[in-house]
């Protein structure tokens, strides 16, 4: 019964999505207020029905209802509760339902939080979101319905893929989808602006916080995926340039460009066309990502067995959305206008350079990701693009980007002076340069690339310091407390930039000084890695809720003293009988010690992986600092003020009207 309610809710949601897509858009075009006002209630109703469907599916998982095919395929009575909940999006059908839940959730948030927006604008925004939602609900109902019954019901489920039985499953996909799908709001704002022909600072101010939140979630989602891959896949790497990773990274690059471009549009009124285009690109890349992940066209760690018709459907959706919006852009963008002018050396120029570099980066990733597909489609052989390509291309693009980040945050709008900037930043550069040369020696050995990476990160930190100190000094000169007048948006920006610096520290030091050792160890054997001695003390059997494991005991010794015992496991899950390596990691601010079991070799000996990863946690720490910066910038007062100020106007008008009325009454 419950699954039928879910199925039916989904159909109702589709009906509402179609109304949401058609009525408000026509209303906005014809100026019919009643039709425009349909937007909000319909969007909220749609969210309600999708949420009901999602709740029904979750219920089916919690109660292990194996008469539902999707549940029987992805769950099992032995599966712990938290993974039964996570398993809702552990397969294709459920993850698409999560996608739509996120989309309608974002639409709901827009409908609630933008009470003060002009009626026609909000009608268009919600209408566009309804169009997207219609496409995806059709997709779910026609090709990937999670509520299909299995007759007769299975006695036991086939269980969730052991690889997914991890806390990572509970957090990574929802975060990532929040980000992916969140760009749909920026996209809808852009399309609405094109349709309405109104693209002003107020428009930018409205879409900015939405874009920032989406970007924040995407940043965290990617970072969590990276952490998950690091400890779960057992290879100790944190990024593999896997096509699916790239699929999430491309919208991130475009989204990063978008939040910077939006800043210019809001503050200076420039880059309008460009901002709109970026919003379209960011969302198109999100859709492309969904296509790549869900179609199974790629060989990847994420590519589980899939059905090709689904890929075709998403591809068609992608073509319609991207093609349609690009056509609209080509038609309407020339009317939008260019906005304020600026000099060659100005903050606008630096941000333009930022945008260009980020898009170049996204394009190189796109090339590396799609090229194998194109070659295969043309029948010219099967190839893959190796990770070295991405490293070789990425470093030269990112280096100027990070360098300009320090300068750009300091430059004035409209017109800045290079000599002035040079004077202000010379100490920052000198400090960065000197520490970049010295620190590698302290780490043990000097490498040019390490020095280069450190130069960039120290440069970032130093320019932030100089920028903040300048503000404090200026405040003190006029007798105000040093940190007054710093908006959250300013602090958020500096924080996010500091996150980039921390990220680079992590990447540089891991690549420069990590030690990876695969060894064969008998009981009692020791091996030395980066000053730590690892002693293999044998294995023992243990049991988990739905698996049995061989657990290794690896004693870590430093300077003759016992430091800790690492317990890597080799698990065997009861249902899918698939072996899983569970690494043991000791996390630290300056280094991770990583041990995982390979396989038994002979006579009690095991092959063992021992890794020493210096500063690796800075990589994810940097990402979370970036996300925090984004969140802080989003909560800036002016976005709330903007809504309040607009709110006051109509209420002021009613007051006046009321006063007139009373006066009239008196008279």
């Amino acid at each position, binding site marked *: 019964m419950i699954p039928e309610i879910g199925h039916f809710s989904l159909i109702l949601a589709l009906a509402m999505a179609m109304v949401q897509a058609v009525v408000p858009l026509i209303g906005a075009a014809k100026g019919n207020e009643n039709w425009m006002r349909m937007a909000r209630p319909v969007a909220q109703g749609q969210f309600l029905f999708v949420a009901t469907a999602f709740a029904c599916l979750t219920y089916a998982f919690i109660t292990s209802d194996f008469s539902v095919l999707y549940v029987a395929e992805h769950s099992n009575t032995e599966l712990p509760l938290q993974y039964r909940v996570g398993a809702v999006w552990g397969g294709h059908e459920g993850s698409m339902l999560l996608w739509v839940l996120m989309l309608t959730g974002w639409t709901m948030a827009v409908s609630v939080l933008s009470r003060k927006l002009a009626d026609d604008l909000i009608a268009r925004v919600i209408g566009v979101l309804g169009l997207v939602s219609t496409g995806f609900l059709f997709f779910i109902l026609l090709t990937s319905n999670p509520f299909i019954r299995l007759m007769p019901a299975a006695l036991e489920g086939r269980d969730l*893929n052991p*690889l997914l039985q991890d806390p990572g499953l509970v957090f990574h996909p929802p975060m990532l989808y929040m980000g992916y799908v969140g760009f749909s709001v920026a996209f809808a704002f852009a399309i609405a602006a094109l349709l309405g022909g109104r693209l002003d600072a107020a428009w930018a101010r409205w879409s900015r916080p939405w874009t920032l939140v989406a970007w924040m979630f995407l940043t965290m989602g990617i970072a969590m995926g990276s952490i998950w891959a690091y400890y779960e*896949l*057992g290879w100790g790497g944190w990024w593999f340039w896997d096509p699916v990773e790239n699929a999430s990274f491309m919208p991130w690059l475009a989204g990063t460009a978008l939040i910077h471009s939006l800043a210019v549009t809001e503050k200076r009124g420039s880059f309008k066309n460009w901002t709109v285009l970026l919003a379209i690109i960011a969302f198109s890349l999100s859709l492309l990502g969904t296509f790549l992940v869900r179609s*199974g*066209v790629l*060989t990847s*760690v994420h*590519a*589980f*067995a899939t059905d090709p018709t689904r890929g075709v459907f998403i591809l068609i959706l992608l073509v319609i959305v991207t093609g349609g919006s690009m056509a609209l852009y080509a038609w309407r963008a020339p009317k939008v206008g260019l906005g304020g002018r600026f000099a*060659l050396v100005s903050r606008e120029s630096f941000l333009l350079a930022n945008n260009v570099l980020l898009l*170049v980066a996204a394009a*190189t990733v796109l*090339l*590396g990701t799609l*090229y194998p597909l194109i070659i295969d489609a043309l029948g010219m*052989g*099967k*190839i*893959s*693009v*190796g990770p*070295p*390509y991405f490293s*070789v*291309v990425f470093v*030269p*693009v990112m280096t100027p980007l990070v360098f300009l980040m320090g300068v750009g945050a300091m430059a004035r709008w409209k017109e800045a002076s290079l000599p002035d900037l040079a004077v202000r930043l010379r100490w920052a550069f000198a400090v960065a340069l000197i520490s970049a040369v010295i620190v590698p020696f302290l780490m043990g050995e000097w490498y040019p690339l390490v020095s280069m990476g450190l130069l960039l990160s120290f440069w970032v930190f130093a320019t932030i310091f100089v920028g903040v100190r300048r503000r404090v000094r200026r405040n003190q000169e006029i007798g105000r407390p040093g940190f007054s007048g710093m908006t959250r948006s300013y602090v958020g920006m500096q924080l996010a930039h500091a996150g980039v610096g921390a990220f680079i520290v992590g990447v540089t030091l891991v690549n420069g000084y990590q030690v990876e050792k*695969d*060894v*064969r160890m008998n009981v009692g054997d020791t091996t030395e890695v980066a000053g730590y001695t690892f002693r293999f003390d044998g294995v023992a059997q243990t049991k988990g809720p739905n698996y049995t494991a061989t657990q290794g005991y690896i004693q870590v010794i430093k300077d003759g003293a016992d430091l800790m015992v690492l317990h890597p496991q080799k698990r065997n899950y009861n249902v*899918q009988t*698939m*072996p*899983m*390596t569970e690494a043991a990691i000791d996390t630290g601010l300056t280094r991770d010690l990583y041990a995982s079991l*390979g*396989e038994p*070799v*002979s006579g009690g000996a095991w*092959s063992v*992986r021992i890794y020493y990863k210096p500063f690796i946690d800075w990589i994810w720490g940097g990402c979370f600092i970036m996300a925090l910066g984004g969140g802080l910038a989003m909560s800036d007062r002016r976005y709330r003020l903007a809504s309040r100020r607009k709110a006051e106007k109509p209420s002021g008008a009613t007051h006046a009207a009321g006063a007139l009325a009373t006066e009239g009454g008196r008279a």
Partner: protein
Amino acid sequence: MKSRHKRLALVAVGLVGLGVATTLVLRAFNSNLVFFFSPTQVAAKESPQGRSFRLGGLVEQGSLKRDDNGLTVHFVVTDTSVNIPVTFTGILPDLFREGQGVVAQGKLSPDGVFMADEVLAKHDEKYMPPEVADALEKAKDVNAQMSGTSLAKSGTEGKP
């Protein structure tokens, strides 16, 4: 006039930058393309010598052997028509099993042994890398043809 010159100069700088960037990208691209070959293609000498490529197929049943010391393993990758011996030093992925699909990356040594420096993992027992599925499909066709031709041959032999 002056501002026009400035603009021209900017455009020129931009174009040169773009050109340099494109060249660099394409060069990096070319030197990092990894081609995929099936055992049949390797046997037909279609695969490059001295350059890294990917080999995919099934791990032949009973072919996995481990050196007594160290972490070196030997196994045979087959597409049911041709077998290629593979040597790999390191830890095999969890789902590496005899009779299952595998993709290995490495170089072909002059004596015909594939020296893998990476054996790629897969994470779903149902999942078969598309390249491997394709290679097996082709080999099946070849096998069918071969048996067809041998039948024809025996037919002609039987005539006189």
